């Protein structure tokens, strides 16, 4: 009886709904359908640009039809991983730059095989390369900088740094000290209230600027020496001091509100907060280059990019490539840039951009990206690198001994690499 009731319920339900799931298969009749997943659900500006590209592409030819499905960013990677496990990935998927090597290694992706003339025209950090092959390419990149008010720096007699002559660490320490003395309880917002991959994205460039790194990039087989060597220890000692001295804290809120409210004098944040800051602070806003910790300033590079899944059929892969080629037109890249306030990946789109063009108010970000951006380590082990880095940095921020915390991170990263047979390296 129990089994009968279960069966009855199951049969009744299996018939109740089945969404149209064409995957990436050709249906014999009309155009070949190609399903495309974005992480942009809940982002009307970005979706509107995608809609425009897809409509234009579908109208431009009759062979392929792009079908768009949107996921919220926070649950996107889980959805992709689950679909990969079920072997139900669509043809076109977007992905955050540092995740790409892991997905390529796991067999989710096939090489992109777009014309070199196209990928060469993009910002280096907008192209995802793994083991010598291009697996992903993006329409734009993001960049970090230090936000400040010109009036505040001038009032405190602090030199305004330039791209050519950024602040040295000694200058920066002196500046933050002066700002604290001037009345800012916490003069610097480093964004330490945030969590997840932000920690690696935001603070590993500082470590690289100091001469360390998250992993030894020469072979991607160990973090020994890179993450726990003298340069790394020196940088993280400074990082700990910044919180101990009360220059920065981890109280939040996440975002740039404390700077907008003039509760902090300096804010280490991204281009995505620039428009709001510009609206609120106006011409007093300064977008400063990052601090030179000794080896030249660095910022993180590599944002959302497009790839083609490994399981995509031959005809669909061909269509997916044609769509991607079509979509990398400057006019679309400029539309993304002006809608999302992100740095266009091509020189042509940058020149046409309202914000990042020659006279754009946020032009500085394009310069910072071109001069200082460094992609995160292109290794399949990056998820573990990132979480280990975050844990160590948070422990250090909260007062842990620097060297043992870094040694623990190195051990976690190296163990992961070892247990995955070096990820093929």
């Amino acid at each position, binding site marked *: *009886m*129990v089994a009968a*009731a*279960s069966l009855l*319920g*199951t*049969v009744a*339900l*299996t*018939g*109740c*709904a*089945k*969404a*149209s*799931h064409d995957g990436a298969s050709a249906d014999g009749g009309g155009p070949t359908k190609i399903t495309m*997943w974005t992480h942009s*659900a*809940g*982002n*009307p500006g970005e979706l509107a640009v995608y809609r425009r590209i897809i409509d234009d592409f579908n109208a431009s030819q009759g062979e392929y039809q792009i079908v768009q*499905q*949107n*996921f*919220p*960013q*926070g*649950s996107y990677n*889980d*959805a992709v*991983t*689950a*679909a990969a*496990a*079920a*072997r*139900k990935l669509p043809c076109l998927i977007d992905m955050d730059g540092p995740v790409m090597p892991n997905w390529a290694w796991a067999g989710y992706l096939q090489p992109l095989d777009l014309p070199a003339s196209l990928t060469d025209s993009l910002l280096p950090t907008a192209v995802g390369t793994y083991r010598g092959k291009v697996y992903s390419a993006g329409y734009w990149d993001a960049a970090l900088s230090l936000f400040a008010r010109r009036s505040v720096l001038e009032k405190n007699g602090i030199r305004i740094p330039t791209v050519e002559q950024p602040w040295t660490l000694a200058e920066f320490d002196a500046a933050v000290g002066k700002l604290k003395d001037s009345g800012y309880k916490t003069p610097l917002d480093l964004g330490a209230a945030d969590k997840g991959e932000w920690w690696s994205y935001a603070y590993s460039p500082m470590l690289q600027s100091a001469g360390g790194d998250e992993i030894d990039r020469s072979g991607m087989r160990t973090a020994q020496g890179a993450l726990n060597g003298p340069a790394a220890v020196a940088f993280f000692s400074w990082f700990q001091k910044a919180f101990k001295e009360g220059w920065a804290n981890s109280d939040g*809120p*996440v*975002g*740039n*509100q404390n700077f*907008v*409210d003039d509760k902090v004098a300096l804010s280490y944040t*991204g281009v*995505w*907060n620039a428009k709001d800051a510009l609206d609120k602070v106006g011409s007093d806003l300064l977008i400063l280059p990052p601090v030179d910790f000794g080896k030249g300033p660095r910022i993180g590079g590599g944002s959302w990019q497009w790839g083609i899944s490994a399981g995509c059929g031959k005809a669909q892969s061909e269509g997916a490539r044609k769509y991607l080629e079509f979509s990398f037109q400057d006019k679309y890249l400029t539309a993304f840039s002006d809608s999302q306030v992100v740095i266009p990946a091509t020189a042509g789109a940058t020149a046409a951009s309202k914000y990042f063009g020659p006279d754009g108010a946020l032009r500085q970000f394009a310069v910072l990206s071109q001069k200082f951006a460094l992609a995160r380590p292109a290794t399949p082990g990056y998820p573990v690198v990132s979480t280990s880095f975050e844990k160590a940095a948070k422990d250090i921020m909260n007062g842990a001994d620097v060297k043992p915390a870094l040694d623990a991170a190195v051990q976690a990263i190296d163990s992961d690499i070892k247990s995955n047979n070096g990820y093929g390296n």
Partner: protein
Amino acid sequence: MAETARAPRARTETSEQQLRRRRRAWSYLVLVGLSVFFLFPLVFMFVSSLKPDGQLLSDIGGWRAFLPVGDISLHNYGAVFDRVPVGRFLLNSLFVTVAIVGLGLVVNSMAGFALSRMRWRGRGLVTSVVIATLIVPFETIAVPLVYWVAHLPILFLQDGTLVWDTGWLDGYQVQIVPFVANAFSIFLFSQYFSTIPTSLDEAARIDGAGWFTIYRRIVVPLSGPAFATVAILTFLPAWNQYLWPTMVVQDEKLRPVMVGMQYFFQDNPAWGEVMAYTSMITLPVLVVFLAFQRSFVSSVAASGVKG
């Protein structure tokens, strides 16, 4: 003499009454304090849903966070509808939750009945296996389960024709069926049914009743608290489902409310909209709780179980 003997007693009673009143006043004070304490998150949520992000974040450090002051409007509620198909998500969650609870009550009570009242070979082993599954967290089986449901056969209607296919992903059924049979619910029913005297079964069998009649006519009517408890304990996790629909539902039209929460977490979370959305999706749960508050408390007390 009698009057003098009565007078102190009257005075004593008065002071006892005063003491009792004072104790009651203190207990009310403590209870009101606790109520306010537990209401804080809800008040914060509703009040914050009326504020723009900048003000919400500025107010957060003080009492203003709990007061509808400053730039108050319903703008965030309008913005929620622009960003998320909230009506559709609510309907999806309602449908999935009602189906899980309804089917779960039938299937699990029948299973509990079979385990507690019927005598059959292997009953003890099956009971042990059912209880053993309680220690396996869902997260550990989620990925294999996705693979499994992606290859299950399915029969569905397409353009008026019945189509036979494989793969349960992207539908309501995949959100409902895996959660209908529930080991904890079976255990609860089984425990509760075993407290009902078996002499009732014997009497019914003498009168010619079969097992299904005994289940339907005798056991179910006597097990109201067990059904109420299971319904409530199943309702909340079903309404709050997040991980599973994230993994198996790709079509936006089929997503439940909790997945919708992620729509607001872009580079900078839209906190005012988050609060407006959570207010909207919390409301049905609050209404259900307030409507069935008495049953909820009594069923929890009767079964000795809390969620």
